[in-house]
């Protein structure tokens, strides 16, 4: 049966993200992600099902059925899915995939190879527990492993962020000086399976197609002479030339991450958001821990305390200078996280070392699926008499 392609108008990223009128919808994070894909002019989506990612990719499959996505299939596993999406991206088409916890870990070798191959792709991560004993509950420990892969990593707070960051992710990923995969993470279930208000432009609009001949590496296009060349050098010789080339190659990945900062400012409004700037007690958080922290800040205000909140939108590149500036007045910082490792706490300590005298508390943290009640955040902020710790 032939699919009747929907009529969508190509508009600039700026128009789609900032100018086009938006309508509100009360939808889940999975629905928000698929609504972003609907407007992203995606050529191919490949994934392997895993909870809590499955619903999003099932919905993307439906978009394929409706003609919004040009190709779609379920791979044999995550290694297959992520390898195939890498190959697809090398041919110059717009690609996306998604996974969660153990699925991400299974495909991590391939994920870590994407940046070195300079493949633009958007990778949606619906975080969940990765470690034994097996659980499907929310926990974002897998992001700890993502931080060193060379991928750009955004951490969405809510359904609205998931929609906006996903669309912006395609645009940033495909900038010539960036040409890197962008992972957009969200905390599973809390966002993917819960509803929230999302403002979206009309689905009659979509991003321009990928302009693959204006990227940092040649596409695999056997019809065009400059491209009839091996793209990735097999640098596997045991000599200094090989080592040096590989070292320079790795440096270039991190340089490309740095270059994405300009575009993150443009399309995400910056790498952080600051509530109550200049406060002496500050919460630094990412993902859905930000939402819990917002409520804690509100409750603290009712108690007569002004608490600062810094939302970290981009984990890679990490907002080093921004955090140093935003924490200038801080005397005590707490870092609520949904994982046992405390990766954001560790990143913050490394960032503020020698740049702040603030005490950085080692928590609060919940994991294994436990929710983070605002009372827990308040306990880390105030002692039993109601004074700031």
């Amino acid at each position, binding site marked *: 049966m032939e699919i009747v392609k929907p009529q969508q108008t190509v508009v600039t990223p700026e128009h789609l993200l900032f100018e086009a009128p938006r309508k509100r919808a009360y939808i889940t994070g999975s629905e928000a992600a698929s609504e972003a894909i609907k407007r992203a002019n995606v050529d191919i989506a490949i994934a392997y099902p895993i909870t809590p990612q499955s619903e999003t990719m099932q919905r993307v499959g439906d978009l394929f059925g409706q003609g919004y996505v040009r190709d779609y299939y379920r791979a044999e596993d995550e290694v297959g899915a992520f390898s195939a999406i890498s190959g697809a991206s090398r041919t110059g088409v717009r690609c996306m995939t998604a996974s969660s916890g153990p699925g991400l870990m299974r495909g991590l070798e391939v994920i870590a190879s994407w940046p070195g191959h300079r493949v633009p792709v958007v990778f949606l991560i619906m975080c969940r527990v990765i470690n034994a004993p097996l659980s499907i509950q929310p926990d974002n420990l897998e992001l700890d492993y993502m931080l060193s892969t060379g991928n750009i990593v955004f951490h969405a707070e809510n359904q609205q962020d998931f929609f906006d960051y996903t669309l912006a992710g395609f645009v940033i990923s495909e900038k010539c000086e960036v040409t890197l995969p962008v992972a957009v993470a969200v905390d599973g279930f809390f966002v993917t399976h819960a509803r929230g208000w999302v403002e979206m432009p009309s689905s009659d609009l979509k991003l321009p197609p990928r302009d693959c001949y204006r990227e940092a590496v040649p596409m695999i296009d056997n019809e065009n002479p400059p491209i009839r*060349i*091996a793209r990735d050098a097999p640098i596997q010789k045991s000599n200094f*030339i090989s080592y040096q080339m590989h070292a320079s190659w790795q*440096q270039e990945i991190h*340089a490309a991450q*740095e*270059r994405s900062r300009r*575009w993150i*400012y443009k399309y995400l409004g910056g790498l952080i958001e600051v509530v109550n700037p200049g406060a002496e007690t500050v919460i630094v958080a990412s993902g859905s821990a930000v939402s819990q922290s917002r409520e804690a800040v509100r409750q603290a205000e009712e108690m007569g305390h002004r608490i600062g909140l810094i939302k970290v939108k981009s984990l890679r590149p990490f907002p080093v200078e921004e955090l140093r500036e935003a924490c200038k007045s801080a005397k005590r910082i707490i870092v609520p996280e949904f994982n046992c490792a405390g990766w954001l706490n560790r990143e913050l300590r490394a960032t503020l070392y020698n740049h702040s005298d603030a005490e950085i508390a080692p928590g609060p943290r919940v994991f294994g699926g436990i929710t983070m009640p605002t009372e827990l955040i308040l306990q880390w902020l105030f002692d039993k008499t109601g004074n700031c710790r």
Partner: protein
Amino acid sequence: MLNTEKQSLGDKNGKTVASYRVLPGPEGLLPPAAACCGITLPLEGEGLVEGIIRSEQDTIEEMARQLLTRRNPTIFPGPLVLWAWKDGVTVKADCIMELANEIPGVRIIPMPDYRPIYPKIDPEAVINPCHPNLTIAHNKIEVCVFIGVHCHFANITLKMIRAGTNCYTITLCNEAGHEDSMASLPFCGTDKVEALTNAVRKLKAGGLRPYHADTPGIQLTVAQKAVAAGLKNGN
């Protein structure tokens, strides 16, 4: 103080004030990526000289001066200008030849593709991103121009050149430019190549004596001469 010992001063809204300077090397074993030291790319209408954002015109003039006053100037054309793969490429290639003809003693050594060449490169025939310093060192190149090279491969090449040679690197980039070269022009179409050619002409007309004033025109390497001779003999 080594370049590598200098630190970034700050980062505001994607614009950075950095103290690191991108200077001719040899800088050492593994120089940092300039972007990681706070050097940001120029915008349209701007250029980058040794890590500092300058006006496009200033950048062009500095490029012209370096090309005329350093030893063994060499143009490295990449795949994007070596093959007529889309409209406009031959026009750009002609502009590059016009530029070359204005630089006394200049050589043209192509980077035809990015595959590593083992076991031995012919440094008079090609430059290769896996070991660009071999071509630079063999030919004693102290100023060069990269044009038509995909940005990823240009960037890894530029760092290796800065690590091990004293070559002044210039990039005429069709896209966003290169922090790791000593002078870089972004969004460089034929108009900007022509502007550089005119800047070279203007400097010479103004009395600047080129380093290779006595060897006008494009110079062939020994390997290129051999090829040219072979072609003439019908081989």
